[in-house]
């Protein structure tokens, strides 16, 4: 990744303009052809610096107001299998294993989004039944202080 790539990311990370030729301004700014802007974005996607180029959705506006971080204590030798089952649930948007801490036994995290807290609870219950993991907590978000996504 070179300086131009960095500038390109900075110029687009807050969203491209909704105009017929959204890459034109960016190309002018970077003093490269429009086609190179597109080639560079594609290359950044290919190399994994950009996960995807597209729309970010405002869940809350669509009524998806319940956001639960569900934390699970899963035996280390079952993490691979249990993580795969959790990831298979449509209501689970993100699923990670994270390090354990002495004060915090939980090691698997599933983000569940739904219209109501009850739906989130039901999903967590279904996951528990499907995996046999019974030690878990549902931590609903009570306030959103920030949600910008990753920026550079």
């Amino acid at each position: 990744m070179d300086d131009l790539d960095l500038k390109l990311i900075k110029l687009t990370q807050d969203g491209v303009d909704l105009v017929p030729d959204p890459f034109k301004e960016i190309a002018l700014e970077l003093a490269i052809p429009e086609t190179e802007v597109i080639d560079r974005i594609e290359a950044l996607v290919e190399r994994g610096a950009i996960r995807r180029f597209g729309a970010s959705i405002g869940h809350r506006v669509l009524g998806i107001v319940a956001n639960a971080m569900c934390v699970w204590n899963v035996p280390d030798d079952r993490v691979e299998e249990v993580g795969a089952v959790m990831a298979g649930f449509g209501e689970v948007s993100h699923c990670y294993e994270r390090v354990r801490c002495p004060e915090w036994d939980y090691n698997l995290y599933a983000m569940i989004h739904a219209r109501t807290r009850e739906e989130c609870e039901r999903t967590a219950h279904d996951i528990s039944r499907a995996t046999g993991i019974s030690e878990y907590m549902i931590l609903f978000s009570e306030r959103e202080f920030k949600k910008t996504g990753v920026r550079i």
Partner: protein
Amino acid sequence: MIHELELDDTDRQLVNLIQLDFPLDLHPFQTLGDQIGTSEQEVIDHLRRLTDIGVIRRIGPILNTKGLGGVSTLVAMQVPEDAIDRVASWINGFDEVSHNYLRPGAYNIWFTVSASSKERLHEMVGEIEALGYPFLELPVTRLFKIGVKFEV
């Protein structure tokens, strides 16, 4: 914050299409119009309205911290009730913080950090530590799922 949302077929088609398959070409909205059988102007008008009402946050790159050579982590902090607002806005002051939520429990402030390097993350953790509140640092050790698309 649930609005009375009237999404028409064009809105739904566009939202479902442009999360993963935003066309990377010189006239992407023309291409989208061709794909769903409407005009470029019609596509732009719909996308502008969807952006105004918050259904679309932005159309741009969704960045991958690791792919950019950076490091990320999740921090959980125990903050007394009367300090929550102050500490939350102090945390938000870091550009590297992408998400920040209030959740129930002893660890009540949860935020994600995406730093450009290990050194920068270390420096931030040092500043967080200096606040004096107990906290956990919970980096990802395995990734099972990362939300890519939200069907409307």
